């Protein structure tokens, strides 16, 4: 009888341990691809975005892995993202021109893959920006890019990200620097998907109301 009670207590103890492991609801198992994605935008608040009227966008997407340019691609997905940025820029009143027609703004799109883990602010991405996007493309050979804001992407890295970077070409003559004025970063599951490119880029623009050639910002 006494033995049975001890066994009963031991069983209860084991059940306690089992409960600890099994009763927790895993948030990641209850998440769709869309819910997993986050959209991060940063901008230089001292910039007047209505002072820009024309822009140009790169004709391919840079694939950046661990801080180094691997290649440039123009897949169907890349084309969808480029087109989505064009559509949103047009809706905000900016006029698309060729890169040799002295655009006010330049836009680059990059696929960023980092194997590192931990909490980061993507310094390795912007730190080597010249190596992915040569300022020569915009007609400013020998210049350096400069991003005055720090990305707020302080989250653990698990997979790739898509970065849309907007640089100020109109004022690039000063200090031989090309300043980054806006960045949109998309992270999460199934980012690189042509069918959702438009909605993903729209999310970046929706949370950036100051991006307008007619705004008061």
């Amino acid at each position, binding site marked *: 009888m*006494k033995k049975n*009670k*001890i*066994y*009963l*207590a*031991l069983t*209860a*103890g*084991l*059940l*306690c*341990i089992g*409960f*600890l*492991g099994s*009763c*927790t*609801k895993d*948030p*990641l198992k*209850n*998440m769709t691809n869309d*819910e*997993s*994605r*986050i*959209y*991060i*935008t*940063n*901008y230089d*608040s001292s910039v007047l975005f209505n002072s820009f009227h024309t822009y140009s966008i790169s004709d391919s997407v840079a694939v950046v892995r661990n801080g180094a340019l691997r290649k440039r691609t123009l897949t169907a997905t890349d084309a969808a993202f480029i087109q989505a940025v064009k559509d949103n820029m047009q809706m905000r009143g900016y006029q698309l021109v060729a890169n040799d027609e002295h655009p006010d703004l330049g836009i680059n799109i990059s696929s960023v893959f980092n194997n590192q883990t931990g*909490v980061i602010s993507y310094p390795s991405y912007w730190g080597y920006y010249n190596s992915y996007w040569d300022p020569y493309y915009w007609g400013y050979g020998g210049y350096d890019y400069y991003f005055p*804001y*720090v990305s*707020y992407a302080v*989250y*653990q890295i*698990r997979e790739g990200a898509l970065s849309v970077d907007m640089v100020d070409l109109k004022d690039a003559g000063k200090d031989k620097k090309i300043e980054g004025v806006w960045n949109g970063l998309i*992270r*999460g*599951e199934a980012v690189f998907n042509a069918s959702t490119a438009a909605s993903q880029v729209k*999310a970046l623009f*929706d*949370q*950036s109301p100051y991006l307008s050639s007619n705004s008061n910002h």
Partner: protein
Amino acid sequence: MKPFKIFFFTLLCAGFGLPALAQQQKLTMNINYAVHMPTGNFKSNLVSKTSFRGWNANLLYGITDQLSLGLEAGFSDYYQKYPRQVYTTKGGAVSAVLSNSIQTVPVMIKGRFNLAPSGIVQPYVGAGVGGNFVSYTRYLGEFGSSKSGVYFVASPEAGIAIPFREHGASAFTLGGRYNFMPFSYGDNKNLNNWGLYAGIRFPLK
């Protein structure tokens, strides 16, 4: 769950069956399924949904017919997902589905006072104080950041025990309690909640 917590609770849970403790008089064990309802600050800032994933268990030694003292441990898992929203950050914005996942494991010294020890229905009041192991993870999309630590907990309770037979030590238990659980994360200052539980009590000797 962190390894040290698993280790700690393995010891604690296994301890419920230690033969040495069972040698004492009037040693009872009470195991309950529990639901917890966040209140106040906890409810408005982190999780408003009731948690149906909880339990508590105590090991009490009868000092007198009415007063019992011992140890109690419990567990509760809270989870809530909020629809996508744009959050302003320094220099920009983040759009994300926000999920909060919180686990609390209070371990307390426990006292319980039986108001009618020979009744068919035995109402009781009790209280526990101790440490609360808290693990909190906030997810923006699928990206989580965690905070864990040990905090104070105090838990007054009231309930009834209905013995399975007259003067028997085994009983059905049903009760409620308020869990004071200080906690600090941003604007949130506590994890206070109401708890309801039901289970069985049985003697170990």
